[in-house]
Structure formats: C-alpha cells, structure tokens
C-alpha cells in the first residue's frame, strides 16, 4: 500500500535523481543600486505547478521576466533543461508567458491571436488550423473565434491569453498574476480550470501571485518571497502547517503569535514563559531550543478551542473576555482579550444559526489548544 502511494504522489523535489527543468544558480539581479533578486538558488521540476508568492516588490515578477528573457541576471545563471539560457533571446526560448494585462493583440481576432505564435514557427496550414481549433476547444472559446479582443468579457480574454501562450506547447508556461483582473467567483472557477489544463497538457507552470489563497489552491509547491530572497519553498500544506519563520506564518493565512522564552521539559516538549502571572504554555517542537531562548509560538485560530468553562486536561488553557467577533457567515473569529491585554483569535465553524450561538461580546471564555497545535519558531 505504502509503495503505491509513494509512486503516485508527485514529489520530484524529494527525489535526489530527478533533473530539474529550471535551475536558478546564485542569481542576483540589480536595477541600478536596487537589488531585486538577491543570490537566489531554486530548482523547479518538470510538470510542476510552481507558485511564486510575495508582496509587491518582492522580486517575483523579476524572476518570471528573467525566465521569459526580458531581463538578464546580473550575476549567476539560469538553466532550462540543463542549458544556460543567458544568451537566448525571448523569441528563441521554449518558454511562453501569459501576461498580467493579457496583452492580446487588439487588431487581430481571437483565432489569429491564438495562431500568432504558430505562424512564426512556419507550421503547415493544416497543422496550424488543427492546433488552433484544439486550443479553442481546450479553453471553450470555439464560439468567439472571429471576435476581436475588445468584444469579449474579461474571463474570456483571460482564456484567450492562456490558449495563445499554450498553443506552441512550451516546455514552461509563465503566468503573471493571471487571475488578478477577475472577480472572486470567476477567479475560483478559473483556478480549477487552470489546474485541469495544466494536468491535461503536462506543461510546467510557474505562476506569480500575491494572493496566498490562489497559490495554495493551484500550486504543487509555493515559494514565499520577500525582498528578493526565498523565505520558504514547500508544498502548500507544509507552508501552512509548518512555516519556518514568523514571516511565512504571518503571510499565509491568519495566525496568533505569542512571544516567550523556552525551557526544555522533555526531548521535544518545551514550556514557554510568556507573560507575568500567566501559566506557562506547553508546545512540542521538532527543532531544538536552548533554555531561555526567545521563541514565537504560532497557532492558527482554527486550532484554538473556545469554551465557556475551563476545559479539563487541556495542554494549554487561558482565560479572557470576548473583545470582538468577526462574523464571516460560515466561520466566526472571536478576538479574545486576555487579562494582560494580549488578543488571541479563535475561529469556529458556524454549525448553528446565529440565535443559538453561545458567546457574545464581553463574555468570559476559556481558550485552549493542544501542545502540538502550534509551531515553535525562533524568528
């Protein structure tokens, strides 16, 4: 059973023998005195759906533009399928890009937009037509083939841009904030469509986004970037459940950060001194901490239980008052103020209707969580 699982799970980054499709080796990119990319090393594997995630100005778009050939590394090298691509111009790279603005040619209709790249390859007429039709079908645009880009909706334009960049069957497809211009509902549908198309075509996708939900949904691995450096590269669930730094924990999703000092209790259990007059907290950690070391305990709000009575046998329990309630429909987040002023968020699923809810403003409540619920972080 274990064998079957390990052979079907797609994890080339765990395989030491796998050859990466893209290899950034100590890449630095400077614009004048500004360092956009700072000595960055990264491997991306074939058939991956790789997300570059970070706030604007973190260098993610620069990385994508270097892959497309519009920017060149100041130092270091980028390899595509084992070949240094520093001197290959954009039109000679087996890489296509889907632009944030879609960059559809306004003077050509949808059919000609999709055929544009194929015509440059001097494809025979019949093959070209077949390929364009295939792309139209893949992106469900058959009905719009003769329209001009300004005669279709934003979601359709997004699909034209995708079809055009996929038409040449690139080894690598770059997507620059591909869903940024779409509204939320359409964005969610399109995310699944993208994953579907990526699976069908087997193309390696690299997506740039500042939307962490989007990155989590579509990607096989996520690289969290800040100020030109990679902060953490891991699968979405590892990024969420095992962040390696406070920055990543805070950037992805909602989190409570409690600062304190560790003292070892067992092999991998620690007690944390965190506030005057408060009981010590208990947490486990795979990484070891020295006694008295400053630490940050990161706990996701949904892992904190809120009760009106003191829970028995809880590893950690603190008392406070409901300071605020954020009602999201399906979920509610309770902002609980502890006696020392710290606010801790606890999230519950609203399985009951609002009139049956047990807590309201100023209610005294108990918050509890297990020793394994949080992650202990050094910085």
């Amino acid at each position, binding site marked *: 059973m274990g064998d079957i699982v390990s052979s079907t799970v797609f994890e080339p980054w765990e395989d030491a023998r796998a050859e990466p499709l893209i290899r950034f080796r100590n890449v630095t990119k400077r614009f004048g005195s500004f360092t956009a990319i700072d000595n960055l090393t990264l491997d991306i594997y074939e058939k991956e759906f790789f997300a570059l995630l970070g706030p604007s100005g973190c260098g993610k778009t620069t990385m994508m533009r270097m892959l497309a050939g519009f920017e060149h590394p100041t130092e270091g090298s980028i390899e595509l399928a084992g070949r240094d691509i520093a001197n290959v111009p954009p*039109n000679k790279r087996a890489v296509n890009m889907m*632009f944030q603005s879609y960059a559809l*040619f306004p003077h050509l209709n949808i059919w000609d937009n999709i055929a544009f*790249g194929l015509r440059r390859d001097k494809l025979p007429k019949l093959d070209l037509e077949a390929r364009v039709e295939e792309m139209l079908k893949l992106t469900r645009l058959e009905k719009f083939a003769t329209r001009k*880009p300004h005669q279709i909706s*934003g979601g359709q334009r997004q699909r034209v841009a995708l079809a055009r960049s996929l038409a*040449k069957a690139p080894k690598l497809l770059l997507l620059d904030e591909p869903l940024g211009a779409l509204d939320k509902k359409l964005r969610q549908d399109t995310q699944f469509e993208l994953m579907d198309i990526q699976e069908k075509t087997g193309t390696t996708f690299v997506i740039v986004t500042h939307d962490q939900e989007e990155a989590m949904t579509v990607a096989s691995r996520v690289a969290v970037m800040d100020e030109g450096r990679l902060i953490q590269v891991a699968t979405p669930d590892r990024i969420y459940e095992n962040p390696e730094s406070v920055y990543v924990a805070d950037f992805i999703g909602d989190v409570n950060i409690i600062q304190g000092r560790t003292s070892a209790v067992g092999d991998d259990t620690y007690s944390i001194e965190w506030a005057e007059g408060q009981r010590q907290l208990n947490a486990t950690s795979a990484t070891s901490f020295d006694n008295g070391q400053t630490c940050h305990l990161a706990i996701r709000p949904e892992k904190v239980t809120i009760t009106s009575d003191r829970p028995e046998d809880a590893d950690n329990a603190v008392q406070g008052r409901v300071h605020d309630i954020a009602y999201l429909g399906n979920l509610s987040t309770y902002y609980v103020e502890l006696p020392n002023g710290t606010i801790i968020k606890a999230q519950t699923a609203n399985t009951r209707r609002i009139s049956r809810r047990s807590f309201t403003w100023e209610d005294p409540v108990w918050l509890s969580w297990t020793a394994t619920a949080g992650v202990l972080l050094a910085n």
Partner: protein
Amino acid sequence: MTRLSWFNVVSLTLGFAFLYIPMLILIIFSFNESKLVTVWAGFSTKWYGELMQNEAFLNAAWVTVKVAVMSSTLATVLGTMAAYVMVRGGRFMGRTLFSGMIYAPLVMPEVITGLSLLLLFIGIGLDRGVLTIVLAHTTFSMCYVSVVVSSRLVTFDRSLEEAALDLGCSPSEAFRLVTLPIIAPAVISGWLLAFTLSLDDLVIASFASGPSATTLPIKIFSAVRLGVSPEINALSTLMIAVVTVGVITASLVSKRAMVRQKQEEQAAARVT
C-alpha cells in the same frame, strides 16, 4: 448643450471673423466675373477654366504634389523610426539631447532652415530641383511626424511587444506585425500633416528650388508681385480646399482611433 451669453457670442464672432474673413473674400472673388480683383461684377467660374489652360501653374501644381507625396512619405518613415527609438530605446547616452534635437526644427525660423539647406546643397554640389525640395521638406516635416507618433507610442502597452517577442517574433517582426498596425492611425495622421505642411511651404521651398522646378506657393508669390489676378484667387481657393480636406481627414483619423482606443480600454476595464 449650454446657451452662450451675448458676450460669448460676440467674442466668438469677432475671433472667427478675424480668422476667416480674408480667406472668405479670396474665395468670393475667385468667382468674380471681372478681371479687376476688387470690383464685383457677377458670378462666374471662368477663372477656374482659365487656370486649367495655364501650363506654368499646372506644372507647378504637379511639382508641388510630387514633392508633397515624396517628402511626406520619407518624413513619415524617418519620423516614425526616430519616435520609436526615443520612446522605446531606453536610457541610452544622450537620449535627452537627441529628443530635444528632434523637436528643435519646430521652433527654428524657416529662413534659417532654408538658408542652411541651401548652403548644404551648394556645398555638396547638388543641383536645385525636385530632389532638393523633397529633401528640404522631409527635413522640417519629419519632426512633426515624430511628435505625433511618439505621443501615440507613449500610451502603447509595452507588453504587447513583449508578447510578440515571447511568441517567437524577432524584434523587427514584432514591430511590423504588432506595433505598426496598432499605431497606424498616428502614422497616417503624421503623413497627412507632413503632406499639408509641404503643400503650404513657401520659405524653405524658395531656398531649395531651382529654375528646373518651382512649387505652387512660389509660383503664386512671384505672380502676385506682378499684380493679383483672379486666376490666382481661383488657384488659392483650390489650395485651401485641398489643405482643408487634408487637415480634416488627419484629425478625423486620429480622433476615431482615439475613440476606438478609449472604447477598447473601457471594455478591458469592464471585466465581467
């Protein structure tokens, strides 16, 4: 629509009267029966007929059109290239100096431009004729073209060119297949502007022309010195007509393109 106050009506009337009464008088008197330019003697189109018989004027008109077509075409090619480099070339050495120098002929006194061209033609031993007028007109109308084209290029979405490169175009293919079709309205209105400027020019042409070729404005100017004839009025009326059509077409072309572009941008913003 707002109603104009009497003050605005008066100022509007005065302003336009100031601008157009001279031309209007010229047009009216081109249909004068009398040979005397200032005395009205009934309506007639006979001066237009006579104009058609005047070999010298027809020759000059032919030279003028030839010069205008050739110089505006040449100016459009050079001006578009210059505009492209200025807007797209990035920050190369001396870019500011170059872009300033492209626009300098706009404010240069025509006499000076004409004189310097004359000296150049004599210096390199070029016989003055159609060729020299074409060269001279290209020189001064090129900067107008580059102003028109570069103002369009500034608003041009750069990622369209990058998309063309990304899909396998060489830089020159990207220009030909993507940039040029999109900026075509600006290029066309630049050409029309250059054409009209060349048609109008007297000062520079009089420096660059020689005995073998004379343009219409020069011909009219020298004819008027011997006395104004109704024939000249007829000729001038025709020229006004040609220039008016040219200018209106140029502004229509660029306005339509602007409206279309705006619609497209709005459509793009209205993401559904």
